[in-house]
Protein backbone atom coordinates (compact mmCIF):
# COMPACT_ATOMS: atom_id res chain seq x y z
CA UNK A 1 0.00 0.00 0.00
CA UNK A 2 1.12 3.55 -0.73
CA UNK A 3 1.36 5.88 2.23
CA UNK A 4 -0.79 8.95 1.78
CA UNK A 5 -0.92 12.32 3.54
CA UNK A 6 -4.38 12.83 5.05
CA UNK A 7 -6.16 16.18 5.05
CA UNK A 8 -9.44 17.46 6.44
CA UNK A 9 -11.27 18.40 3.29
CA UNK A 10 -14.72 19.60 4.32
CA UNK A 11 -17.26 20.07 7.11
CA UNK A 12 -21.04 19.99 7.16
CA UNK A 13 -23.98 20.31 9.51
CA UNK A 14 -27.64 19.43 9.70
CA UNK A 15 -29.98 22.00 11.21
CA UNK A 16 -29.37 22.31 14.97
CA UNK A 17 -32.44 22.64 17.16
CA UNK A 18 -34.21 21.81 20.39
CA UNK A 19 -36.60 19.51 18.55
CA UNK A 20 -35.62 18.21 15.12
CA UNK A 21 -38.81 16.27 14.37
CA UNK A 22 -36.72 13.89 12.25
CA UNK A 23 -34.69 10.78 12.94
CA UNK A 24 -30.99 10.79 13.85
CA UNK A 25 -30.44 9.01 10.49
CA UNK A 26 -31.96 11.96 8.65
CA UNK A 27 -29.81 14.38 10.64
CA UNK A 28 -26.70 12.31 9.91
CA UNK A 29 -27.49 12.20 6.19
CA UNK A 30 -28.09 15.97 6.07
CA UNK A 31 -24.70 16.55 7.67
CA UNK A 32 -22.99 14.00 5.41
CA UNK A 33 -24.34 15.51 2.19
CA UNK A 34 -23.34 19.00 3.38
CA UNK A 35 -19.82 17.86 4.28
CA UNK A 36 -19.28 15.95 1.04
CA UNK A 37 -20.47 18.97 -0.95
CA UNK A 38 -18.17 21.25 1.07
CA UNK A 39 -15.30 18.86 0.29
CA UNK A 40 -16.00 19.09 -3.43
CA UNK A 41 -16.62 15.35 -3.74
CA UNK A 42 -19.50 13.13 -4.84
CA UNK A 43 -21.12 10.90 -2.24
CA UNK A 44 -20.19 7.70 -4.12
CA UNK A 45 -16.51 8.56 -3.68
CA UNK A 46 -16.73 8.05 0.11
CA UNK A 47 -15.20 4.68 0.99
CA UNK A 48 -14.90 4.81 4.79
CA UNK A 49 -17.51 5.68 7.40
CA UNK A 50 -16.74 6.36 11.06
CA UNK A 51 -18.83 7.62 13.94
CA UNK A 52 -19.00 7.69 17.70
CA UNK A 53 -21.81 7.83 20.21
CA UNK A 54 -23.80 5.95 22.79
CA UNK A 55 -25.92 3.93 20.38
CA UNK A 56 -28.12 7.00 20.06
CA UNK A 57 -27.62 7.50 16.33
CA UNK A 58 -27.21 5.49 13.14
CA UNK A 59 -24.23 3.16 12.90
CA UNK A 60 -21.81 3.29 9.96
CA UNK A 61 -23.29 0.36 8.04
CA UNK A 62 -26.78 1.82 8.13
CA UNK A 63 -25.29 5.12 7.00
CA UNK A 64 -23.34 3.49 4.16
CA UNK A 65 -26.54 1.85 3.00
CA UNK A 66 -28.67 4.99 3.34
CA UNK A 67 -26.07 7.05 1.47
CA UNK A 68 -25.87 4.43 -1.27
CA UNK A 69 -22.12 3.99 -0.96
CA UNK A 70 -20.96 1.41 -3.51
CA UNK A 71 -17.86 0.28 -1.60
CA UNK A 72 -16.90 0.64 2.05
CA UNK A 73 -13.29 -0.22 2.81
CA UNK A 74 -13.28 0.78 6.46
CA UNK A 75 -15.92 1.46 9.09
CA UNK A 76 -15.91 2.10 12.81
CA UNK A 77 -18.50 2.85 15.49
CA UNK A 78 -16.68 4.03 18.60
CA UNK A 79 -18.66 3.66 21.83
CA UNK A 80 -17.92 6.92 23.55
CA UNK A 81 -18.86 10.51 24.19
CA UNK A 82 -16.93 13.74 23.80
CA UNK A 83 -13.60 12.11 24.53
CA UNK A 84 -14.00 10.12 21.30
CA UNK A 85 -14.48 13.09 18.96
CA UNK A 86 -10.80 13.57 18.22
CA UNK A 87 -9.94 9.89 18.41
CA UNK A 88 -12.32 8.99 15.59
CA UNK A 89 -10.87 11.72 13.37
CA UNK A 90 -7.36 10.45 14.15
CA UNK A 91 -8.37 6.91 13.22
CA UNK A 92 -9.90 8.19 9.97
CA UNK A 93 -6.63 9.94 9.17
CA UNK A 94 -4.71 6.75 9.89
CA UNK A 95 -6.98 4.81 7.52
CA UNK A 96 -6.05 7.28 4.78
CA UNK A 97 -2.37 7.34 5.67
CA UNK A 98 -2.14 3.55 5.56
CA UNK A 99 -3.92 3.33 2.25
CA UNK A 100 -6.84 1.43 3.80
CA UNK A 101 -9.31 4.03 2.55
CA UNK A 102 -9.23 7.17 0.45
CA UNK A 103 -12.21 9.40 1.23
CA UNK A 104 -13.39 9.20 4.84
CA UNK A 105 -16.67 10.39 6.34
CA UNK A 106 -16.81 10.98 10.12
CA UNK A 107 -20.11 12.00 11.71
CA UNK A 108 -21.95 12.44 15.01
CA UNK A 109 -25.74 12.54 14.99
CA UNK A 110 -28.31 12.42 17.76
CA UNK A 111 -31.58 13.76 19.00
CA UNK A 112 -29.85 14.84 22.19
CA UNK A 113 -32.86 16.79 23.42
CA UNK A 114 -35.91 14.88 22.19
CA UNK A 115 -34.42 11.40 21.83
CA UNK A 116 -34.31 8.61 24.38
CA UNK A 117 -30.70 9.30 25.33
CA UNK A 118 -30.18 12.48 27.30
CA UNK A 119 -27.04 13.45 29.14
CA UNK A 120 -28.58 16.02 31.46
CA UNK A 121 -32.05 16.85 32.60
CA UNK A 122 -34.24 15.03 35.02
CA UNK A 123 -35.21 12.11 32.83
CA UNK A 124 -33.25 9.28 31.34
CA UNK A 125 -29.55 9.09 31.99
CA UNK A 126 -27.89 7.24 29.20
CA UNK A 127 -24.58 5.94 30.34
CA UNK A 128 -24.88 2.34 31.44
CA UNK A 129 -21.97 2.07 33.81
CA UNK A 130 -20.88 -1.54 33.90
CA UNK A 131 -19.29 -3.62 36.59
CA UNK A 132 -17.53 -2.30 39.63
CA UNK A 133 -17.76 1.33 38.52
CA UNK A 134 -21.54 1.27 38.46
CA UNK A 135 -21.80 -0.46 41.82
CA UNK A 136 -20.01 2.45 43.49
CA UNK A 137 -21.59 5.23 41.46
CA UNK A 138 -25.33 4.55 41.22
CA UNK A 139 -26.00 3.95 44.95
CA UNK A 140 -24.31 7.30 45.67
CA UNK A 141 -26.47 9.10 43.12
CA UNK A 142 -23.42 10.04 41.07
CA UNK A 143 -24.31 8.78 37.63
CA UNK A 144 -24.94 12.08 35.81
CA UNK A 145 -21.87 13.33 33.90
CA UNK A 146 -22.18 16.76 35.53
CA UNK A 147 -21.14 15.38 38.92
CA UNK A 148 -17.56 14.49 38.08
CA UNK A 149 -16.98 17.94 36.61
CA UNK A 150 -18.66 19.64 39.57
CA UNK A 151 -16.32 17.81 41.95
CA UNK A 152 -13.36 18.92 39.83
CA UNK A 153 -14.57 22.52 39.68
CA UNK A 154 -15.04 22.65 43.45
CA UNK A 155 -11.51 21.33 43.94
CA UNK A 156 -10.17 23.96 41.53
CA UNK A 157 -12.02 26.70 43.42
CA UNK A 158 -10.56 25.43 46.68
CA UNK A 159 -7.04 25.27 45.34
CA UNK A 160 -6.91 28.41 43.20
CA UNK A 161 -9.75 30.65 44.39
CA UNK A 162 -11.66 30.32 41.13
CA UNK A 163 -15.14 31.87 41.38
CA UNK A 164 -18.56 31.21 39.90
CA UNK A 165 -18.50 34.69 38.32
CA UNK A 166 -15.33 33.72 36.48
CA UNK A 167 -17.04 30.57 35.19
CA UNK A 168 -19.92 32.82 34.12
CA UNK A 169 -17.50 34.78 31.95
CA UNK A 170 -16.85 31.62 29.95
CA UNK A 171 -20.59 31.14 29.36
CA UNK A 172 -21.02 34.79 28.38
CA UNK A 173 -18.17 34.60 25.85
CA UNK A 174 -19.60 31.44 24.29
CA UNK A 175 -22.93 33.22 23.85
CA UNK A 176 -21.24 36.23 22.24
CA UNK A 177 -19.61 33.92 19.72
CA UNK A 178 -22.86 32.03 19.09
CA UNK A 179 -24.52 35.33 18.21
CA UNK A 180 -22.23 35.42 15.16
CA UNK A 181 -23.06 31.84 14.17
CA UNK A 182 -26.25 31.32 12.20
CA UNK A 183 -26.28 27.63 13.16
CA UNK A 184 -26.21 28.27 16.91
CA UNK A 185 -29.26 27.32 18.95
CA UNK A 186 -28.64 29.87 21.75
CA UNK A 187 -27.89 33.29 20.28
CA UNK A 188 -29.64 35.56 22.80
CA UNK A 189 -27.16 37.52 24.87
CA UNK A 190 -26.29 36.32 28.35
CA UNK A 191 -24.96 38.35 31.27
CA UNK A 192 -22.95 37.30 34.30
CA UNK A 193 -25.93 38.36 36.46
CA UNK A 194 -28.28 36.09 34.49
CA UNK A 195 -25.81 33.24 34.90
CA UNK A 196 -25.65 33.87 38.65
CA UNK A 197 -29.44 33.96 38.92
CA UNK A 198 -29.93 30.69 37.02
CA UNK A 199 -30.87 27.66 39.09
CA UNK A 200 -28.27 25.44 40.66
CA UNK A 201 -27.83 22.02 39.05
CA UNK A 202 -24.87 20.52 40.92
CA UNK A 203 -22.84 22.97 42.97
CA UNK A 204 -20.83 24.90 41.99
CA UNK A 205 -22.61 24.70 38.63
CA UNK A 206 -25.60 26.81 37.71
CA UNK A 207 -27.75 25.97 34.70
CA UNK A 208 -25.67 28.22 32.44
CA UNK A 209 -22.48 26.39 33.36
CA UNK A 210 -23.86 23.36 31.54
CA UNK A 211 -23.87 22.46 27.85
CA UNK A 212 -27.19 22.85 26.08
CA UNK A 213 -29.14 19.78 24.96
CA UNK A 214 -29.90 19.80 21.26
CA UNK A 215 -30.88 17.68 18.27
CA UNK A 216 -28.47 17.71 15.36
CA UNK A 217 -25.56 16.26 13.45
CA UNK A 218 -22.29 17.30 11.88
CA UNK A 219 -19.74 15.58 9.70
CA UNK A 220 -16.16 15.89 8.51
CA UNK A 221 -14.78 14.58 5.22
CA UNK A 222 -11.12 13.63 5.01
CA UNK A 223 -9.07 12.63 2.02
CA UNK A 224 -5.58 12.75 0.58
CA UNK A 225 -3.48 15.76 -0.32
CA UNK A 226 -3.77 14.76 -3.97
CA UNK A 227 -7.55 14.79 -3.85
CA UNK A 228 -7.55 18.14 -2.04
CA UNK A 229 -5.34 19.66 -4.73
CA UNK A 230 -7.62 18.16 -7.38
CA UNK A 231 -10.72 19.83 -5.97
CA UNK A 232 -8.88 23.05 -5.19
CA UNK A 233 -9.33 23.04 -1.43
CA UNK A 234 -6.83 24.47 1.08
CA UNK A 235 -4.67 21.80 2.74
CA UNK A 236 -5.71 21.36 6.37
CA UNK A 237 -3.68 18.61 7.99
CA UNK A 238 -3.21 17.13 11.44
CA UNK A 239 0.13 18.49 12.61
CA UNK A 240 -0.02 16.53 15.86
CA UNK A 241 -2.50 14.50 17.84
CA UNK A 242 -2.61 12.89 21.26
CA UNK A 243 -5.18 10.88 23.13
CA UNK A 244 -5.20 9.47 26.62
CA UNK A 245 -5.95 9.79 30.27
CA UNK A 246 -4.31 10.71 33.52
CA UNK A 247 -5.31 8.92 36.66
CA UNK A 248 -8.72 7.47 35.97
CA UNK A 249 -11.03 7.44 38.96
CA UNK A 250 -13.58 4.68 39.32
CA UNK A 251 -15.91 5.31 42.22
CA UNK A 252 -13.56 8.05 43.39
CA UNK A 253 -10.47 5.89 43.62
CA UNK A 254 -7.21 6.87 41.96
CA UNK A 255 -7.91 10.59 41.96
CA UNK A 256 -4.55 12.08 42.88
CA UNK A 257 -5.66 15.69 42.37
CA UNK A 258 -9.34 16.29 41.73
CA UNK A 259 -8.73 19.69 40.12
CA UNK A 260 -6.90 18.12 37.17
CA UNK A 261 -8.41 17.11 33.86
CA UNK A 262 -6.88 14.76 31.29
CA UNK A 263 -5.28 17.77 29.60
CA UNK A 264 -2.95 18.32 32.54
CA UNK A 265 -1.24 15.12 31.45
CA UNK A 266 -1.79 15.29 27.70
CA UNK A 267 -0.95 18.88 26.68
CA UNK A 268 2.85 18.72 27.04
CA UNK A 269 2.92 15.63 24.84
CA UNK A 270 0.78 17.29 22.17
CA UNK A 271 2.97 20.38 21.94
CA UNK A 272 6.12 18.29 21.90
CA UNK A 273 4.81 16.27 18.97
CA UNK A 274 3.73 19.43 17.13
CA UNK A 275 6.99 21.25 17.77
CA UNK A 276 5.15 24.48 18.56
CA UNK A 277 4.19 26.47 21.66
CA UNK A 278 0.77 27.74 22.82
CA UNK A 279 1.67 31.21 21.51
CA UNK A 280 1.66 29.78 17.97
CA UNK A 281 -2.02 28.76 18.14
CA UNK A 282 -4.36 31.15 16.31
CA UNK A 283 -7.72 29.71 17.34
CA UNK A 284 -8.80 27.15 19.94
CA UNK A 285 -11.88 24.94 19.75
CA UNK A 286 -11.98 23.48 23.26
CA UNK A 287 -14.50 20.93 24.52
CA UNK A 288 -16.89 22.81 26.77
CA UNK A 289 -19.42 20.43 28.28
CA UNK A 290 -19.20 22.74 31.29
CA UNK A 291 -17.70 26.19 31.73
CA UNK A 292 -15.12 24.77 34.12
CA UNK A 293 -13.93 22.08 31.74
CA UNK A 294 -13.17 24.71 29.10
CA UNK A 295 -11.44 26.94 31.65
CA UNK A 296 -9.22 24.17 33.01
CA UNK A 297 -8.16 23.12 29.51
CA UNK A 298 -7.28 26.73 28.65
CA UNK A 299 -4.81 26.52 31.54
CA UNK A 300 -3.47 23.10 30.64
CA UNK A 301 -2.94 23.98 26.98
CA UNK A 302 -0.82 26.87 28.14
CA UNK A 303 -2.84 29.95 27.21
CA UNK A 304 -2.47 31.11 30.80
CA UNK A 305 -0.83 29.68 33.90
CA UNK A 306 -2.44 26.86 35.84
CA UNK A 307 -4.91 28.26 38.32
CA UNK A 308 -5.33 31.52 36.38
CA UNK A 309 -8.05 30.37 33.98
CA UNK A 310 -10.74 32.19 35.95
CA UNK A 311 -9.18 35.67 35.79
CA UNK A 312 -8.09 34.95 32.18
CA UNK A 313 -11.68 34.23 31.13
CA UNK A 314 -13.07 37.14 33.16
CA UNK A 315 -10.65 39.50 31.37
CA UNK A 316 -12.24 38.53 28.06
CA UNK A 317 -9.17 36.70 26.80
CA UNK A 318 -11.23 33.95 25.11
CA UNK A 319 -13.11 36.37 22.86
CA UNK A 320 -12.71 36.83 19.14
CA UNK A 321 -9.91 39.33 18.65
CA UNK A 322 -8.45 38.71 22.12
CA UNK A 323 -5.48 36.59 23.26
CA UNK A 324 -6.87 33.26 22.17
CA UNK A 325 -10.21 33.23 20.32
CA UNK A 326 -11.87 30.15 21.80
CA UNK A 327 -14.92 28.28 20.54
CA UNK A 328 -15.66 30.72 17.79
CA UNK A 329 -18.88 28.76 17.05
CA UNK A 330 -20.25 29.08 20.57
CA UNK A 331 -19.37 25.55 21.60
CA UNK A 332 -21.48 23.04 23.45
CA UNK A 333 -22.57 25.84 25.77
CA UNK A 334 -24.32 27.85 23.05
CA UNK A 335 -24.03 26.45 19.51
CA UNK A 336 -25.18 22.83 19.81
CA UNK A 337 -24.36 19.63 21.65
CA UNK A 338 -22.40 17.78 18.99
CA UNK A 339 -20.03 16.12 21.44
CA UNK A 340 -16.91 17.72 20.08
CA UNK A 341 -17.16 16.91 16.40
CA UNK A 342 -18.67 20.38 16.02
CA UNK A 343 -15.39 21.75 17.35
CA UNK A 344 -13.49 19.86 14.64
CA UNK A 345 -15.89 21.19 11.98
CA UNK A 346 -15.44 24.76 13.22
CA UNK A 347 -11.66 24.39 13.15
CA UNK A 348 -11.87 23.21 9.53
CA UNK A 349 -13.97 26.27 8.66
CA UNK A 350 -11.55 28.60 10.42
CA UNK A 351 -8.49 27.13 8.72
CA UNK A 352 -10.19 27.11 5.33
CA UNK A 353 -11.15 30.73 5.91
CA UNK A 354 -14.89 30.18 5.53
CA UNK A 355 -16.06 31.07 9.06
CA UNK A 356 -17.78 34.29 7.97
CA UNK A 357 -18.55 36.80 10.75
CA UNK A 358 -16.50 34.85 13.23
CA UNK A 359 -13.42 34.26 11.07
CA UNK A 360 -10.10 34.62 12.87
CA UNK A 361 -8.03 36.55 10.36
CA UNK A 362 -5.20 34.48 8.89
CA UNK A 363 -5.91 31.43 11.07
CA UNK A 364 -3.11 28.99 10.42
CA UNK A 365 -2.90 26.74 13.50
CA UNK A 366 -5.90 25.52 15.46
CA UNK A 367 -6.12 23.52 18.68
CA UNK A 368 -9.12 21.15 18.87
CA UNK A 369 -9.97 19.10 21.95
CA UNK A 370 -12.54 16.57 23.07
CA UNK A 371 -12.81 15.15 26.55
CA UNK A 372 -14.71 13.39 29.26
CA UNK A 373 -12.84 14.83 32.21
CA UNK A 374 -10.24 12.19 32.88
CA UNK A 375 -9.75 11.08 29.32
CA UNK A 376 -9.65 12.96 26.11
CA UNK A 377 -7.96 13.68 22.86
CA UNK A 378 -6.61 16.73 21.10
CA UNK A 379 -5.24 17.72 17.73
CA UNK A 380 -3.32 20.62 16.35
CA UNK A 381 -4.63 21.27 12.86
CA UNK A 382 -2.59 23.24 10.41
CA UNK A 383 -3.26 24.96 7.14
CA UNK A 384 -0.20 24.21 5.07
Amino acid at each position, binding site marked *: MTRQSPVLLGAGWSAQSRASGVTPLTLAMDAAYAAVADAGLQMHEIDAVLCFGRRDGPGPLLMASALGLPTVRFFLEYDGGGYASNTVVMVGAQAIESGTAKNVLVYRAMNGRTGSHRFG*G*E*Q*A*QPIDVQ*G*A*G*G*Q*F*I*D*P*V*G*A*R*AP*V*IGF*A*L*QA*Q*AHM*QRFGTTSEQLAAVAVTMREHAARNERAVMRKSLTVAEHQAS*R*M*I*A*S*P*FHLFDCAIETDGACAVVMSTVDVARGVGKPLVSIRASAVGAGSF*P*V*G*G*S*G*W*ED*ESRLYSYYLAPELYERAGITPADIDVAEIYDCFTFSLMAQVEDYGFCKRGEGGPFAAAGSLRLGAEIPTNTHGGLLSEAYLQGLGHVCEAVSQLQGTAGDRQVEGAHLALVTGQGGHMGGAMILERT
Partner: protein
Amino acid sequence: MTGAARTEIPIRPMRPVDADTAPFWDLVDQGVLAFQRCAACRRLRFYPQARCPHCGSPEHSWDPVSGAGRVRTWSVQYNAGDPWFREHLPYVIAVVELEDDSRLRMLANIVGCDPATVHFDQRVTVVFEPVDEDRRMYAFKPT
Protein backbone atom coordinates in the same frame (compact mmCIF):
# COMPACT_ATOMS: atom_id res chain seq x y z
CA MET B 1 -60.85 -0.69 35.15
CA THR B 2 -60.28 1.85 37.81
CA GLY B 3 -58.10 4.86 37.21
CA ALA B 4 -56.08 4.29 40.36
CA ALA B 5 -52.41 4.30 39.57
CA ARG B 6 -50.21 1.92 41.48
CA THR B 7 -47.99 3.85 43.83
CA GLU B 8 -44.36 2.96 43.36
CA ILE B 9 -42.14 3.58 46.34
CA PRO B 10 -38.70 4.42 44.94
CA ILE B 11 -35.85 2.23 46.14
CA ARG B 12 -32.21 3.16 46.31
CA PRO B 13 -30.51 2.25 42.99
CA MET B 14 -28.19 -0.49 44.22
CA ARG B 15 -26.47 -2.44 41.45
CA PRO B 16 -25.99 -6.20 41.18
CA VAL B 17 -22.99 -7.44 43.10
CA ASP B 18 -20.38 -9.55 41.31
CA ALA B 19 -17.74 -12.03 42.40
CA ASP B 20 -15.11 -9.29 42.76
CA THR B 21 -17.22 -7.10 44.98
CA ALA B 22 -19.41 -9.51 46.99
CA PRO B 23 -17.10 -9.58 50.07
CA PHE B 24 -17.10 -5.77 50.21
CA TRP B 25 -20.89 -5.53 50.11
CA ASP B 26 -21.38 -8.44 52.53
CA LEU B 27 -19.28 -6.53 55.06
CA VAL B 28 -21.17 -3.28 54.38
CA ASP B 29 -24.40 -5.15 55.09
CA GLN B 30 -22.88 -6.06 58.47
CA GLY B 31 -21.95 -2.44 59.16
CA VAL B 32 -18.25 -2.86 58.41
CA LEU B 33 -16.24 -0.77 55.94
CA ALA B 34 -13.33 -2.89 54.77
CA PHE B 35 -10.95 -2.81 51.85
CA GLN B 36 -8.67 -5.29 50.18
CA ARG B 37 -5.09 -5.09 51.37
CA CYS B 38 -2.52 -6.51 48.96
CA ALA B 39 -0.51 -9.32 50.58
CA ALA B 40 2.53 -8.45 48.47
CA CYS B 41 2.82 -4.64 48.55
CA ARG B 42 0.53 -4.14 51.58
CA ARG B 43 -1.39 -1.31 49.94
CA LEU B 44 -5.13 -0.87 50.51
CA ARG B 45 -7.28 -0.54 47.40
CA PHE B 46 -10.69 0.61 46.28
CA TYR B 47 -12.70 -0.48 44.32
CA PRO B 48 -12.57 -4.25 44.86
CA GLN B 49 -10.86 -6.26 42.16
CA ALA B 50 -9.02 -9.55 41.82
CA ARG B 51 -5.49 -8.17 41.44
CA CYS B 52 -3.66 -5.26 43.03
CA PRO B 53 -3.59 -2.32 40.58
CA HIS B 54 -0.19 -1.31 41.98
CA CYS B 55 1.77 -4.58 41.85
CA GLY B 56 -0.50 -7.13 40.17
CA SER B 57 -0.63 -9.60 43.03
CA PRO B 58 -3.86 -11.60 43.43
CA GLU B 59 -3.22 -12.29 47.13
CA HIS B 60 -5.08 -10.10 49.57
CA SER B 61 -6.96 -9.88 52.86
CA TRP B 62 -10.08 -7.89 53.70
CA ASP B 63 -9.10 -5.30 56.31
CA PRO B 64 -11.64 -3.19 58.19
CA VAL B 65 -10.72 0.50 58.32
CA SER B 66 -11.38 3.09 61.02
CA GLY B 67 -14.08 4.76 58.92
CA ALA B 68 -12.60 8.18 59.60
CA GLY B 69 -11.89 10.45 56.66
CA ARG B 70 -11.81 13.94 55.23
CA VAL B 71 -13.75 15.67 52.47
CA ARG B 72 -11.47 16.42 49.52
CA THR B 73 -14.14 17.88 47.24
CA TRP B 74 -17.93 17.83 47.07
CA SER B 75 -20.98 18.82 45.07
CA VAL B 76 -24.52 19.49 46.26
CA GLN B 77 -27.08 17.97 43.90
CA TYR B 78 -30.25 19.90 43.08
CA ASN B 79 -31.24 17.63 40.21
CA ALA B 80 -31.54 13.85 39.98
CA GLY B 81 -32.52 11.37 37.29
CA ASP B 82 -33.11 8.57 39.76
CA PRO B 83 -36.50 8.62 41.57
CA TRP B 84 -35.06 7.71 44.99
CA PHE B 85 -32.47 10.47 44.84
CA ARG B 86 -35.08 12.89 43.52
CA GLU B 87 -36.90 12.40 46.82
CA HIS B 88 -33.68 13.14 48.70
CA LEU B 89 -32.75 16.45 47.05
CA PRO B 90 -30.62 18.30 47.81
CA TYR B 91 -27.98 15.69 48.59
CA VAL B 92 -24.20 15.82 48.81
CA ILE B 93 -21.69 13.74 46.84
CA ALA B 94 -18.12 13.95 48.05
CA VAL B 95 -14.72 12.45 47.44
CA VAL B 96 -13.68 11.18 50.85
CA GLU B 97 -10.06 10.47 51.68
CA LEU B 98 -9.73 7.63 54.20
CA GLU B 99 -7.59 8.12 57.29
CA ASP B 100 -6.07 4.66 57.00
CA ASP B 101 -4.31 5.62 53.75
CA SER B 102 -4.53 9.14 52.32
CA ARG B 103 -4.30 7.67 48.81
CA LEU B 104 -7.51 5.73 49.41
CA ARG B 105 -10.49 7.72 48.15
CA MET B 106 -14.10 6.95 47.46
CA LEU B 107 -17.22 8.69 46.27
CA ALA B 108 -19.82 8.83 49.02
CA ASN B 109 -22.77 10.81 50.26
CA ILE B 110 -22.30 13.19 53.19
CA VAL B 111 -25.33 12.85 55.45
CA GLY B 112 -26.57 14.09 58.80
CA CYS B 113 -25.85 17.76 58.16
CA ASP B 114 -27.03 20.79 56.23
CA PRO B 115 -25.55 20.43 52.72
CA ALA B 116 -24.50 24.09 52.89
CA THR B 117 -22.11 23.30 55.76
CA VAL B 118 -20.04 20.70 53.91
CA HIS B 119 -16.54 22.03 53.34
CA PHE B 120 -13.01 21.15 52.27
CA ASP B 121 -11.04 19.01 54.71
CA GLN B 122 -14.13 18.40 56.83
CA ARG B 123 -13.66 15.47 59.23
CA VAL B 124 -16.22 12.74 58.60
CA THR B 125 -16.86 9.18 59.74
CA VAL B 126 -18.61 6.29 58.10
CA VAL B 127 -22.25 5.47 58.85
CA PHE B 128 -24.49 2.79 57.39
CA GLU B 129 -27.98 3.46 56.11
CA PRO B 130 -30.60 0.72 55.67
CA VAL B 131 -31.55 0.04 52.03
CA ASP B 132 -33.99 -2.82 52.68
CA GLU B 133 -34.31 -5.67 55.17
CA ASP B 134 -31.01 -7.20 54.11
CA ARG B 135 -28.85 -4.51 52.61
CA ARG B 136 -27.10 -1.42 53.91
CA MET B 137 -25.23 1.40 52.18
CA TYR B 138 -22.25 3.35 53.45
CA ALA B 139 -22.19 7.13 53.80
CA PHE B 140 -20.21 9.64 55.86
CA LYS B 141 -21.33 12.16 58.44
CA PRO B 142 -19.43 15.03 60.03
CA THR B 143 -17.69 14.17 63.31
